[in-house]
């Protein structure tokens, strides 16, 4: 018998070993599960690498600066499984007008929806940013990282931002500053006041004169209105309380912390003033999962 026939005869033995009728649907489900596992591993790997890189960079470049403000251990409450609330949507009153003298730096935006939100409602990814107005690392984050995040992801409709107040107890003026920002939001000038508070953090953080810091971007009439809301509107404190409850549910213990919510609803916590490249790597990975 020639080699070909001989080998064909041997190989034919394998035919009877064929699998039973294959279940294609089950196999495709396994393929999808395999891919999900791969993406999860890769995402964790990217994140771990990015964190390690950032940590190294921080140690080398700014050894004396902290990249976050940590909540003191005794202040950290036990996590509870409460759902994460979202501040109620409060359209600004029609009378909320922003004074814009020529010398003023900020350009207040009158929000048409929840003043703590920005970006498309249909964005695939949501970034919830927990911050404290008196936290130096938060000021760094909003100065160095946030503008690029806003221009490349928020304005392009890929990411929606939700600011959340997380005033830390060791910061004396953090709660008053958060209250001013919320009253400003109720008056339609949240973004301008928000930016101004971080820009002038060193000044009002030293002397507590928040109104003095806001004067260049808020007209006296509007400031009077904000003052009135601070005295009488319960929504100001409610908004902060809601954010703090969300922080407890998310087990936040330092600022800034970005909770990135992916298309599948999974919440990924990224603590510290991370550079844009770290956040973008993470967001890109989630956008791929869409």
């Amino acid at each position, binding site marked *: 018998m020639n*080699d070909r026939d001989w080998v064909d005869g041997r190989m*034919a*033995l394998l035919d009877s*070993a*064929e699998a039973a009728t*294959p279940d294609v649907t089950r196999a*495709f489900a396994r393929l999808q599960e395999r891919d999900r596992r791969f993406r999860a591993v890769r995402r964790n790997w990217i994140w771990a690498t990015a964190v390690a890189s950032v940590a190294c960079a921080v140690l080398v470049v700014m050894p004396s600066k902290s990249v976050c403000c940590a909540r003191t251990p005794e202040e950290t409450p036990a996590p509870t499984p409460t759902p994460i609330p979202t501040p109620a949507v409060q359209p600004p009153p029609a009378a909320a007008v922003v004074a814009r003298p020529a010398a003023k730096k900020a350009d207040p935006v009158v929000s048409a929806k929840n003043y703590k939100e920005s970006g498309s409602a249909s964005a695939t990814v949501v970034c919830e940013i927990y911050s404290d107005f008196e936290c130096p690392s938060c000021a760094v984050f909003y100065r160095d990282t946030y503008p690029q995040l806003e221009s490349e992801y928020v304005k392009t409709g890929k990411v929606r931002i939700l600011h959340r107040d997380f005033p830390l107890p060791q910061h004396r003026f953090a709660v008053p500053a958060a209250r001013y920002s919320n009253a400003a939001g109720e008056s339609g000038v949240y973004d301008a006041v928000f930016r101004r508070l971080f820009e002038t953090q060193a000044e009002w953080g030293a002397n507590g004169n928040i109104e003095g810091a806001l004067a260049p971007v808020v007209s006296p009439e509007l400031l009077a209105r904000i003052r009135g809301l601070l005295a009488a509107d319960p929504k100001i404190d409610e908004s902060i309380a809601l954010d703090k409850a969300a922080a407890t549910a998310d087990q936040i213990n330092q600022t800034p912390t970005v909770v990135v919510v992916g298309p599948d609803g999974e919440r990924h916590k990224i603590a510290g003033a991370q550079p844009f490249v770290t956040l973008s790597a993470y967001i890109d990975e989630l956008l791929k999962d869409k």
Partner: protein
Amino acid sequence: MTGFEAFFHERYERIIRVVARVVRDPARAEEIAVEAFWKLWRNPKAQGDQAGGWLYRTAVRLALDELRRQTRRVRSEKATEGPLSAPTPEQLRLDDEAREQVRRTLARLDSRSAELLLLRSDGLSYGEVAAALDLNPASVGTLLTRAQRAFRKEYVTRYGEPNDERSGLGGRPHGAARLG
């Protein structure tokens, strides 16, 4: 249904079949077939006109890798445990043993020869084998002849000339009907 899902449904049965011929465990064969599709899914460069051939090549390579691992494991287990399976009727046992001999022989060949024999015995034409293994179609015949010679030599060296009656041969000559 996405394009890839349709492709999967169209090709899966054939791929699982070729893998199951090499890998004894059906569950493991399914894993390997899925792994081959997943590699294609994650590799956009492999998609397109050549996807079928690429998939065949990948599946066969994964199956042969698994076969070699199994063969090594079986060798070490045999040294201490004796027969692999529980007692079965004699004919079934002999058939199973004959299949294992074929698999172990494949595992000892060089990868290219084993891939050629497997794809050819699965009914692929010379052109399809050439596409799957990225070979010049004109050289497939020569390479296949060498692979067949190497297989026979290896088999006979290890197990002697087979007794066809004992091993269940003597039925259809496998290659003649399917390969043409």
